């Protein structure tokens, strides 16, 4: 019994810093979002008294569906591209010597200590209709002289991939670093082909890193509004833009909260499902 209590105590001790901090500074504000979603708005940007389902009713509008579909599409494409690039990089970094590894890590992350907006504007310069990239592409016959590289979904995906790539690389690297590469050698000794070994042994070996990487790209992409604002076209509004519009232009905080609440729940639902299904699992870890 005593060992059990000691373990419980240990658990409480180690969990308490994060539990307390997040409980205090995060839980309350988040619950506020859900509460606000159920309150009426007054036209002067304030929050009315009483409760209402009006905001949720407004979300049934078909224009939201279109925006949601567009957002989902762009976020998925961005996530996939980021993963395709991050996995080889994580693999490479984990196998290289410590000196090179740290150097590469710093090289990858340092550009992102400049300002986000400035980087996006630098992309506008790069993709300018009279810019060097456009000239090269026209020269290679890949695009016509009238095609615009900016103000379309492609530009949004490109800049999004650029923005979220380091957040994908870091967790995959963290997971790949602990991976025992001798397992791959063993598999190949047993006759597996390179790609087979990679797919069946390496990827599952870093599955938490993959999951985290997906989390770090997909979710922020869903909520992003600055990138579509600057390099997106007139028909390129995403959910993040709608939330921003509700807060600032429409002064309708409750409606913005309602959109966010739906967004949050739709992302939490899969997690809750997984946690619920795994509750009887023999495996000693979550995911």
């Amino acid at each position, binding site marked *: 019994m005593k060992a059990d209590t000691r373990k419980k105590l*240990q*658990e409480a001790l*180690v*969990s308490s*810093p*994060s539990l307390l901090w*997040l409980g205090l*500074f*995060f839980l309350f*504000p*988040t619950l*506020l*979002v859900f509460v606000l979603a159920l309150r009426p708005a007054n036209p002067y940007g304030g929050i009315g008294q009483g409760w209402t389902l009006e905001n949720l009713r407004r979300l049934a509008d078909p224009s939201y569906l279109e925006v949601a579909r567009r957002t989902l599409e762009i976020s998925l494409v961005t996530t996939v591209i980021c993963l395709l*690039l991050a996995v*080889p990089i994580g*693999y*490479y*970094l984990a196998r290289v010597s410590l*000196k090179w590894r*740290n150097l590469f890590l710093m*090289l*990858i*992350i*340092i*550009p*992102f*200590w*400049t*300002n*986000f*907006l*400035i980087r996006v*504007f*630098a992309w506008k*310069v*790069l993709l300018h209709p009279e810019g060097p990239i456009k000239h090269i592409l026209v020269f290679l016959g890949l695009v016509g002289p009238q095609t615009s590289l900016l103000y379309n979904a492609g530009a949004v995906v490109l800049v999004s991939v650029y923005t979220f790539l380091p957040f994908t690389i*870091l967790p995959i690297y*963290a997971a790949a*670093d*602990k991976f025992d590469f001798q397992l791959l*050698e063993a598999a190949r000794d047993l006759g597996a082909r390179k790609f087979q070994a990679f797919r069946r042994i390496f990827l599952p*070996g*870093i599955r938490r*890193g993959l999951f*985290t990487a997906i*989390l*770090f790209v997909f979710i922020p992409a869903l*909520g992003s509004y600055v990138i579509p604002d600057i390099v997106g076209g007139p028909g390129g509004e995403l959910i993040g833009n709608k*939330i*921003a519009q509700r807060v600032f232009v429409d002064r309708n*905080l409750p409606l913005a*909260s309602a959109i*966010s609440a739906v*967004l949050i729940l739709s992302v939490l639902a899969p*997690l*809750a499902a997984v946690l619920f299904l795994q*509750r009887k*699992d023999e495996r*000693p870890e*979550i995911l």
Partner: protein
Amino acid sequence: MKRSRLPLLVTIVVLFFLYLPIIILVVNSFNASRFGTGWQGFSMRWYARLLHEPEIWRAARNSLTIALGATVLSVVFGTTAAVALHRFARSRLQRFHYGLVYTPLVVPEILMGISLLMAFAAAGVRLGLGTIFLAHVTFCVSFVAMTVLARLQDFDFAVIEAAQDLGAGWGTTLRKVLLPLIAPGILAGALLAFTLSIDDFVITFFVAGPGSTTLPIRIYSMIKYGSPPLINALSTILLTVTFTAVAASQRISRSKG
């Protein structure tokens, strides 16, 4: 057995991709043009102007201070959280804990910022650098925790127990066994937290108080009425400083053997 060249190739191509806008940024900081009308001649005027902009330096200092502080604290909280989540995984407390750590990642920033502001206002907390710091730690903890957790996959705590069986105290076990093993995860988490904090705009905008501007806030409003080339110059300076610091630390660590 030949190792595939693909990973190295991808790394190099991606590095090139990552630095493309940076090159533009640096080149434009020497561009005499204010509106990017094309190259208007080499000029150091933006650097000269930076010397007369105490507001920008103050904002830069604020950003750096908060980023460093928030990184340290969120690394501590994030690592303990990850260890708890992995070690005691199946318990009910940890499942709630996991939800609590996971959710900040999915709340849209605007709402996080406004609700934090409302919470601070309701509690009568004065807005300032302190509130920005609190907000930053809050959203960084989750990122660090998830990153360290990725590192902990398949980690067997039997190693820790073995060390303790051999007589090592908590301090030694921590320092000599656990931390070295998860160090790459902690480093990755720290880099992530620092990057998030130093570049955050939305949440910071809402919880900043008078006189506690950070660089992103200054830059966002300058884009509307001010001179972007000024920011290019500042960014170039910051980049130079950072690269020098990294090169220096590489030199130091190499000489240490």
